[in-house]
């Protein structure tokens, strides 16, 4: 279960343990990972190298600007990196209404490596379609 191409993934979560688990899963899927423990840090990384990051795993519930702040920033700057949202919150109806178009999919914690791989594949397909 390894996605075809090696991708550079930005993994954003305020919980250090989730970052450890994310790193473990993404590396085992054969991708490269950059970690960010807040929305602010994620924006900083995106700003610095917007073309190098190919997929973003984004937690929604974080102190500060949170995941939604990152989405707003990207919308404003028209940065089109495929985003996979991960969250521990169940009620995402309102969020999906507003940001559904901007994201590849949602992963509800706890999710498996298989769930993760499927969405990474979707992100790759979407990225390929938009660039061709």
């Amino acid at each position, binding site marked *: 279960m390894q996605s075809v191409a090696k991708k550079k993934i930005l993994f954003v979560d305020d919980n250090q343990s*989730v970052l*450890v688990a994310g790193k473990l899963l993404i590396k085992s899927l054969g991708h490269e990972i950059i970690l960010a423990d807040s929305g602010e840090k994620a924006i900083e990384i995106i700003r610095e190298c917007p073309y190098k990051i190919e997929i973003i795993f984004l937690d929604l519930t974080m102190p500060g600007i949170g995941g939604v702040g990152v989405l707003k920033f990207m919308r404003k700057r028209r940065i089109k990196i495929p985003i996979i949202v991960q*969250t*521990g*919150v*169940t009620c995402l109806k309102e969020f999906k209404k507003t940001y559904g178009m901007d994201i590849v999919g949602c992963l*509800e914690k706890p999710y498996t*490596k298989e769930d993760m791989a499927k969405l990474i594949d979707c992100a790759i397909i979407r990225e390929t379609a938009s660039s061709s």
Partner: protein
Amino acid sequence: MQKCSYVAKFCKIPKTAQFGSCFLAISVGQPSHEGQKFIAALELVNECLKTCIVGVCDTLQRHTMATIANSSDSEIMHKPSKEAGNQWIERNESVCEQYLKIPYKIKRWDDWIGTKKYSCYRKEVDELYSKDKAFSKIIRDTGRTFNKKLKTKGYVFDEKIGEQNSTQYLLEECAVICSFYDERYDVEIYPFSRNQLVEYTLSRLKGEPLEFYKPLQFRCTKKLIVDDPSSKVALEKIIDVLPGHVYWLDIDGKVLGCNREMAKNLGFKNSNSLIGTHIKIPNLIQEKIKENDTKMIQSKQPCVFEEEAILQGRRKWFLSYKTPVVDKRDKVQGLVGVSLDITDKKDLEKKLLKQTKSLQKALVVRDNFLNTLSHELRTPIHVISSIAEEIHKNIYHFSREEFKDFFDVLVANNRRLTKLVHNLLEVAKSGQHSSSYVFEKKNIIDIIRSTIKEFSTLINILFETKFYSIITEVDEIKIAQILRNLLDNAVRYGEKSPIIVKLEVFKNNKNVIVNVQNKGEGICQIERTKIFEPFFQGSNKIINEGTGLGLTICHGILKAHGGSIWMEQNEGYTSVKFKVSYAECSEEKDLICG
């Protein structure tokens, strides 16, 4: 047999309702429990019930009689109250015999308070009064209202005597009503509404939310008896029995005529006294009604308004149907109005609106709680399952160091999950009714000292008090738990500086405040109001390993103790203070110990 000129009907149910047995409560001295109105009540009982106990509550009044005499000894009024009961029976025994067509029995207050059952219930009620703060509050409040009414009637008495007598009155009434409950009447019939005390007592002592004890209120109205229905006298009588206020005014708003109900509600003896006057209602409301009348007169069309009025000190709402009266030239000469009292409906509307709002608020709180709970539970589960699965699948791929790092994360998350589940159960328990707590008289200083000892290896804690003993009625385990949570927070947020635990004693209202103080960054004003909400963790999350439930647990425990908890901040120190009441305290020389 004398013909009854009144007719009684239940306020909220149709007259055709049928029940089995009833308890017809008689307050000796009440005008509605005598004469024509009493006969009307008996006729109503005949129609709707199969058996009846006429309960003469005579000697209960000895407490009120003592208050009126400004005496704290109710027992000296036992004889006169019994005598009043004897006289009532003398006047009404034959009335019952004449008018009650169903099997009945007259029972007197002493018939209940002389029983063993009463003694048992009285003990339980007294115990409830000493232990249940909500119950003692209702007793005090009801007593106060009761005595206020007596004072407005012109009686002069000492506040304390009044309070003592009304408390005895109410405790006795509650215990007797528990005996009524065992006799299981289908309904109690009473012309007035009962206070919430009865419901509370029965639900606490009998353990049921009671539909049973909702007395059926009834109202007596005069029967319409006319000899010549086409006469002017008949017309007056007819409008007198019509519901609500019926009135007709001239173009200037002067009353030309009205029914008795309107005169009565405006404080006049009869409708003639109102003729030629302007109806007087406090300013703003009067303006609004005038505005409505002008609007209707200008439009020359009948109109319906909801109008507010203050009648005899009470705010009331009326649904007013008003029609202009025009002469042959179509010139408006005045108006005719019918105003129906819709105060109950309005109050119910307000109550429903308030309840709906608070339900909506509760739903938002619940959703937020569930969302945060979901996040807090899912995160450690996700970490544990992801890492464990990965190690399980690729056990030989990892180095010893990697294993150690992964297991550190696994253990930390497992601990967090365990603590979270434990605290969630504690939150649920702390919010339980105070009856699930074990309240005992304990020296709070001993509880504080032994809890501080648990932390002695972790941090230096100073305990400042000049008291040797402060006896409080508390659940020792729960109070220790509060202190443990506060000390735990102080260790976590206190920048490793010493923690100070101080006691402040307020002798005038017998309160003791425990203050747990630490040096630290603290929490901003806006966040301070939210710290007792579940999962609130503040923005200074850097060193936070808590579950966000500790202060919620403290808040719940103190609520059950009738106490409170709050946070204060000044000059670089954060203080979390909690307050409970104490029974007695003894001072010692100034003492500071670590």
